[in-house]
């Protein structure tokens, strides 16, 4: 039961982590909470579902297809909306991204109907590891999370694009002074972040099975909790915060009851924030 709870927490946390890391880098460059972030998770699952159902593609092919579709949508949103959020007060970002979320959600409902769909794909056969039964897909999610976080850490600290992301999140004025093309970095980061959310959606779809237009809403709130806990723009902090939240939820659900899960998780979060206002992993208080 205890190992079960730990494994469940890590797998759930890995799903959160993939969505959250996208939001944390977007938050870093824009200081805007992307209230539409869960919608990109939703769009990812819909993209893959569409590929499987309409184009008869195998799951493995529908993954890149979904990512390309979402990246294109994110690019459009980035150019039309997010670019304008640079240098704007944070309230503007909230209303604008709420608007984006409403539009994306309801366009999907308009195109595909409000009724839920079934996702048919992925590797869902259970395998036994350490006496715990787990689907292959979930192992894939955990592995994918680790690989992607490794790559992101490398990207953020070693590559030119990664450094510009950090630069924009640290000082926009200085970026202008040294000639960083801030709008391009912001749009690029937004597309990257949204594509990561979509990847999480596509990888999770085989285990969550059902998809519908409004499925992204609850993800956004949890994601927000994670990035605040992990420290803004802190990539590895996000992974650990997501795992901690996943473990916390898993223990509450296992020993207390599912209905108390969100409340206990949020209570713990409030306690954590009260004690460590800058999040668990950031080097200094940043927001």
């Amino acid at each position, binding site marked *: 039961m205890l190992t079960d709870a730990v494994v469940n927490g890590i797998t759930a946390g890995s799903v959160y982590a993939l969505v959250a890391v996208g939001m944390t880098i977007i938050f870093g460059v824009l200081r805007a909470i992307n209230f539409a972030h869960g919608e990109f998770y939703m769009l990812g699952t819909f993209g893959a579902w569409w590929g499987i159902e309409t184009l008869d593609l195998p799951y493995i092919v529908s993954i890149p297809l979904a990512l390309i579709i979402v990246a294109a949508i994110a690019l459009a949103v980035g150019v039309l909306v997010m670019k304008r959020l640079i240098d704007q007060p944070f309230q503007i970002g909230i209303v604008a991204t709420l608007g984006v979320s409403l539009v994306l959600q309801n366009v999907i409902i308009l195109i595909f109907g409000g009724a839920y769909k079934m996702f048919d794909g992925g590797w869902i056969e259970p395998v036994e590891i350490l006496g715990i039964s787990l689907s292959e897909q979930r192992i894939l999610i955990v592995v994918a999370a680790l690989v992607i976080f490794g790559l992101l850490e490398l990207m953020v600290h070693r590559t*030119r694009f990664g*450094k*510009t992301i*950090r*630069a924009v999140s*640290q*000082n926009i*004025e*200085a*970026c*202008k*002074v*040294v*000639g*960083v*093309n801030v709008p391009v970095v912001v749009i690029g980061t937004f597309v990257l972040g949204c594509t990561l959310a979509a990847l999480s959606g596509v990888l999770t779809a085989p285990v969550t099975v059902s998809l519908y237009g409004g499925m992204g809403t609850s993800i956004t709130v949890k994601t927000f909790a994670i990035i605040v806990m992990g420290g803004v723009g802190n990539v590895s902090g996000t992974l650990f915060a997501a795992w901690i939240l996943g473990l916390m939820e898993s223990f509450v659900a296992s020993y207390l009851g599912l209905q108390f899960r969100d409340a206990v998780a949020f209570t713990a979060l409030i306690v954590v924030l009260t004690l460590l206002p800058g999040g668990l992993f950031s*080097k200094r208080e940043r927001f």
Partner: protein
Amino acid sequence: MLDDLRGAPALDIRDLRAGYGPLEIIRSLNLTVEPGEFVALMGPNGAGKSTLLKTIFGMATITGGSIGWDGRNVAGMTPRRILGAGIAYVPQGRCNFPLMSVDENLDMASYAVPKGNLKADRDRIYDLFPVLHERRRQPAGNLSGGEQQMLEMGMAMLMRPRLLLIDEPSVGLSPQSIQKVFDELVAINRGGCTILLVEQNTRKAMQVASRVAILRLGEVIWTGPPAGITFEELGAIFMTGELPQRARKTEDSDETRL
């Protein structure tokens, strides 16, 4: 190293009107700067000195007039294009990436204008500011105020500017740091880079500048060599906007303070 830049064309600002959004701070400003000059902008608070630098660098809203540079009008260009045209800007206050190391900060500066290679660029700056080399692995935010100011000047120099706009480099620095910063500015200017400096520390500015331009309410109301004006006269201009009757004094009278 910068000698080849001698003879660069002048900065030629005409009837410039600019500000932030609907708020106009620069009103009909005229100023020309010859190549290799070191011009100190002075004037009371709110005269528009910092705004002028921002405007030249493309970070304010221009509502009229022109900024001639290199024989073309750079008014309305983005900071990136202005950088490309050879103008660099060091704003007031801390303007670096506090969580990045000194190395990374310098890399950021050379990313934008990819001319040389990173390593050579960095070494050039470390030659100029050896203290940065000692602290190259430290986050910029942990550096002292003077060190950060030098870092920012170094970042600006990486852009190989022919015109350096620098805003209040002495604010919050120790006297030694101030001396060091101004020594470096003079060296940069000697290297052939034209400098437009905004500085509250009038004494220091008048020591290093080759010319002074006095701003009041968004206009240049007087310009000339530092020797051509006394501290009393400066103070009077700041207050009234008018040059008082000359009651000539020795120019280096130390007891005169603003």
